[in-house]
């Protein structure tokens, strides 16, 4: 990992911490009853989406899934737009049409996530197909959960990507549960990465809580894709530290597992790493954290003051005219 510069390390830290801070605030807003419907977070898994998205170039594309807050931030969806989205405001990413991170912004290279898990995998192959047809050296990163890999669209996407050697890297956030369903009821293999063998797609399993590992694997496989060598599959092993959504107490997860994984917290451990490796001082980190905190509070305030859309806005934008 010698090749990751200190600047990049610090940038990774910033987005990682911003993601954690924003989502912790989402949790609070949810508990305060300010978020209508449900709220989902990536608590404990933030390294994955931050890592895979920061490794991209500016004009690459992402097809995220609903635990990829980090990717939204890295690609410059502002905290204001994020909180406004959760609060159903006109100033949110989708202007109130959808909630949470069910959103996209084509100008920032983000394709909107459809709830239906793995639906974004075939979409990602099409993005890559466009790049390949036009001879562009761009790549696309797509992500889904361990659960999503059981869906047919996962299969159809990986197969097509491999047949046509498309510049796409598929990520899987393997947080060991699909809602309440443990891996043993989802698949009969030990590593999700084993699924890729069926398509002759090179795959690897990385520690999803190690942001440098995720970042490196992403960099490496994007490079492969850019050079015309086709798709890759990266399983990021991690653990979902909150319930499936913020209302879920997740009693089905054995306590010991959570305790064990708590020690592997991707944010805390990365902070320690940076200090140990003398990339940064703890004072400097505290400063960054403070800035993040105030940025987040400002965004919450902005969003709470933002107007709701009007009822009749419902009728706008069904068709592009």
């Amino acid at each position, binding site marked *: 990992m010698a090749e990751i510069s200190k600047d990049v390390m610090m940038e990774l830290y910033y987005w990682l911490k911003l993601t954690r801070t924003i989502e912790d605030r989402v949790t609070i807003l949810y508990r305060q009853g300010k978020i209508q419907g*449900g709220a989902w977070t990536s608590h404990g898994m933030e390294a994955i989406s931050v890592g895979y998205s920061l490794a991209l170039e500016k004009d690459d594309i992402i097809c995220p899934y609903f635990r990829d807050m980090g990717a939204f931030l890295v690609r410059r969806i502002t905290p204001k737009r994020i909180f406004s989205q959760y609060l159903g405001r006109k100033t949110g990413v989708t202007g109130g*049409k959808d909630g949470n991170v069910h959103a996209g912004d084509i100008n920032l290279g983000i394709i909107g996530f459809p*709830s*239906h898990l793995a639906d974004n995998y075939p979409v990602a192959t099409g993005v890559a197909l466009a790049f390949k047809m036009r001879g562009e050296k761009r790549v696309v990163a797509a992500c889904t959960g361990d659960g999503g890999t059981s869906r*047919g669209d996962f299969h159809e996407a990986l197969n097509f990507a491999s047949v046509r050697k498309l510049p796409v890297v598929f990520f899987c956030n393997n947080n060991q549960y*699909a809602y309440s*369903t443990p891996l043993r009821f989802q698949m009969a293999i030990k590593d999700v990465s084993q699924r890729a063998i069926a398509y002759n797609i090179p795959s690897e399993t990385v520690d999803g809580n190690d942001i440098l590992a995720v970042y490196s694997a992403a960099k490496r496989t994007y490079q492969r894709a850019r050079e015309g060598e086709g798709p890759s599959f990266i399983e990021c092993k991690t653990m979902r530290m909150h319930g499936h959504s913020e209302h879920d107490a997740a009693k089905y997860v054995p306590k010991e597992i959570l305790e064990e994984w708590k020690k592997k917290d991707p944010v805390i451990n990365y902070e320690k790493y940076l200090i140990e490796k003398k990339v940064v001082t703890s004072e400097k980190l505290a400063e960054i954290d403070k800035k993040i905190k105030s940025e987040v509070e400002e965004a919450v305030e902005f969003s709470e003051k933002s107007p709701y859309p009007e*009822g009749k806005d419902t009728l706008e934008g069904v068709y592009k005219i």
Partner: protein
Amino acid sequence: MKEISYIEAISEALKEEMERDKDVFILGEDVGFYGGAFKVTEGFYERFGEWRVLDTPLSESGFTGAAIGSALMGMRPVVEMQFADFISCAFDQIVNVAAKNYYRWGGATPIVIRAPYGGNIHGGPYHSQCPEAWFFHCPGLKIVAPSMPYDAKGLLKAAIRDDNPVICLEHKYLYRRIKENIPEDDFIVPIGKADIKREGRDITIITYGAMVHTALEAAKLLEGKEIDIEVLDLRTLLPLDKEAIFSSVKKTNKAMILHEATKTGGIGAEISSLISEEVFDHLDGPIIRIAAPDTPVPYSPPMEEFFIPNASDVIKAAERLAAY
């Protein structure tokens, strides 16, 4: 008699049927240890074991297909879609395999698909849809959509005992909001029979699901304006109870159809057409449909409120129709 919520009625129906018939089993995402996203099968795992309350991989097409296969072997599977929105992933197995098995080669396919549907819960475009019309245009299927605990329990039991594929649309807005006193004994509500939820002379409102409650609310308010509304709750959408529709319209001579699904191509269209085909001579005014606008279901509260038909929409339309 005992008071019971809409969701309890559904749980009870399932539990009683599983106790009555060992071939009845449940499969779907998180239905097992967790008891389902809405907790319909809470406690079932402990009671019936992991093979009769089967957590599946996230694969709607696959587990619907599996239900079909087991049904062909004489089992009575009940599939839970976590949200009705995800039924789109199993569309092909439902319309091309389940619905056509019996017609094509005599393969009886008694599966039940439970699907929590509808909006008003701030679920946004992917957790609020009303998918009924997609399946309504598919001979071989049956569709039920109860509005009350009694109907929910009785129809689900009837669906499980039916020899055909039945989609049970459970309006999730009603789950914990609607209660009713129902009998303690075993009963079913026959598939294909509508129910008059309020008698009236002036206008018939034909509706189902959560909108039954909206219609009743409007009917109450219209009392003050001396418009006497009859509320016909379809309960079963496929096959439609044409007789009940026609006889109510023959009595009131005016018909309104109310549904939460978007208007174009909704089930209201079929009902309207049937009325104009069969009882045209009895009509004293146009047949009016009240439905959601033709958009996805928006998330933000003011938009969702705008989207879902409400009592005041019904009242306005009723006043217009009464003037005919």
